[in-house]
C-alpha cells in the first residue's frame, strides 16, 4: 500500500468511484455508494468524472434493435404514471362541476394545484381526512390561490398554494358567510404565503356551500366589519366524502 505510484489523499475516493462505475463493487458496496452520493459532492464529482471517462466503452456492446412492443410498454407506463393524478382531478371535477361558481374552471394549472393542495392536506400529520374543502380562486382568471380545509366543524386551516402579492399599505382579510347568514363574518387578517388556523367556535357549524373569500382591505382590516375592498380569492365549501 505504501509505494503505490501516484497515491494522493483522494485516491481511495477515486478508486471507490472508479470501481462503482466500472461495476466491480459488491451489491453491499454499491448500496453504500448510492446512499452516500447525494450527501457527498466530492464522491459524486469523482463518479461523474469516471462516467465520462469510460462512456466511450459503451460502444463496445453490439446495439440490439428493441422490439416495437418495448416503446409501447414504456408509453403505457408513462400513462400509468399520470393515472393517479388524473383520478384525483376527475374526482375534483365531479363535485366541481356541480357548483355554478366553479363551472368551466377545470384548467390544467388549476387541477395541478388542486392535486398539490390535496397532497398537502393528506400529508399533514395524521389528522382525519378533512370533512370540508374549499379552493379559493382569483375571480378574474380563476387561478387557485388558497385551500381551506376543515377536519371538524370547530376549526379550519387556510393553506396558501402560492404567494399572493399584497401592496405594502394593504392587508388580506379572510371572510366567511353561510347561505342563511345576514352578512359575512371576518375570520381575521391573513399573511400572504402563510397558513392560518382559525377557530370557528363562535360561529355556526360549517355548512355545504358556505362562502369563503379574501378581500383587499386597509392594513388594519376593514373599518366597518364588512368587506369593503375587492375580492382577491373566493370559493365555497364542499363536503368531502
Amino acid at each position, binding site marked *: 500500500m505504501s509505494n503505490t505510484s501516484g497515491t494522493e489523499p483522494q485516491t481511495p475516493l477515486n478508486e471507490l468511484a472508479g470501481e462503482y462505475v466500472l*461495476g466491480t463493487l459488491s451489491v453491499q458496496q454499491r448500496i453504500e455508494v448510492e446512499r452516500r452520493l447525494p450527501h457527498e459532492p466530492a464522491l459524486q464529482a469523482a463518479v461523474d468524472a*469516471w462516467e*465520462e471517462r469510460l462512456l466511450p466503452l459503451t460502444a463496445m*456492446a*453490439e446495439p440490439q434493435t428493441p422490439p416495437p412492443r418495448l*416503446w409501447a410498454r*414504456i408509453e403505457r*407506463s408513462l400513462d400509468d*404514471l399520470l393515472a393517479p393524478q388524473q383520478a384525483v382531478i376527475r374526482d375534483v371535477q365531479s363535485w366541481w362541476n356541480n357548483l355554478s361558481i366553479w363551472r368551466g374552471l377545470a384548467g390544467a394549472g388549476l387541477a395541478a394545484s388542486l392535486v398539490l393542495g390535496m397532497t398537502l392536506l393528506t400529508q399533514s400529520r395524521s389528522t382525519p381526512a378533512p370533512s370540508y374543502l374549499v379552493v379559493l380562486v382569483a375571480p378574474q382568471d380563476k387561478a387557485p390561490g388558497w385551500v381551506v380545509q376543515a377536519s371538524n366543524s370547530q376549526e379550519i386551516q387556510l393553506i396558501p398554494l402560492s404567494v399572493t402579492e399584497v401592496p405594502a399599505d394593504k392587508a388580506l382579510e379572510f371572510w366567511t358567510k353561510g347561505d342563511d347568514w345576514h352578512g359575512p363574518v371576518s375570520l381575521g387578517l391573513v399573511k400572504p404565503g402563510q397558513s392560518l388556523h382559525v377557530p370557528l367556535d363562535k360561529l355556526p357549524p360549517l355548512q355545504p356551500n358556505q362562502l369563503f373569500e379574501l378581500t383587499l382591505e386597509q392594513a388594519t382590516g376593514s373599518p366597518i366589519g364588512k368587506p369593503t375592498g375587492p375580492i382577491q380569492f373566493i370559493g365555497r365549501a364542499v363536503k368531502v366524502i
Partner: protein
Amino acid sequence: MSLHEPLFDYEAALDACARGERRALERLYEQESARLLGVAQRLVRDSALAQDIVHDAFIKIWTGAASFDKSRGSARGWMFTITRHLALNAIRNNAREVQSEDDEDHAEAQATLEGWNETVDSFDWRVNPGRIEFCLDQLEPVRRNCVFHAYVDGYSHQEIAQKIGAPLGTVKAWIKRSLNALRECIG
C-alpha cells in the same frame, strides 16, 4: 467533430421531456434505445431482463429529466449511466457469490504481470478514436481485458478471475492499477 454521429441535441430533448413533451422522449428512444439495449443485454445476458432495464431507464429518464444537471456531464452519458447502473444493480442483486475478504496489501504484491505477458486482447476495443483509446493502449492486454470484462460484460472480480484463470487478488490489483493509470492518462 465526431463524423459518424448525427447531430442530435440530447440536452434540448431532455429539457422538452422536463416540460412534459412525450415526443421528446420518443426521439431519445429512437436515437439511443438500440445502443442502450445492447449495453444492457451485454451486462445482464438476458434479453427479457435487458428490455425491462431499458424500460425502467426510460421511465427514469422521463421522471428525472427536470433534475438532470448538465454541469455534471453530458445528457447522452446520463442516459447510459442510468441504464448501466440499473443493469449492474440487477446482476449484482442476483449474484450469489461469496465475497472473500482479500488482504489488500497482499493483493498489491500479487499485481505482477509475470506469466501474463503473452495474453492477447479478448476484445475488439478500438471502436472509439480519442483519448481513451490511446490510454487503453498503454495498458498491457491482460489488464485491458479485465477492464472490459468489468465495464462491458459486467463481470465481478471473481468472474473475471475465473474467466482469465488468474488469482482473485491479482485481478483486484490489476483493476485498481488500471483505473489509476486510466485516470492519470485520460485526466
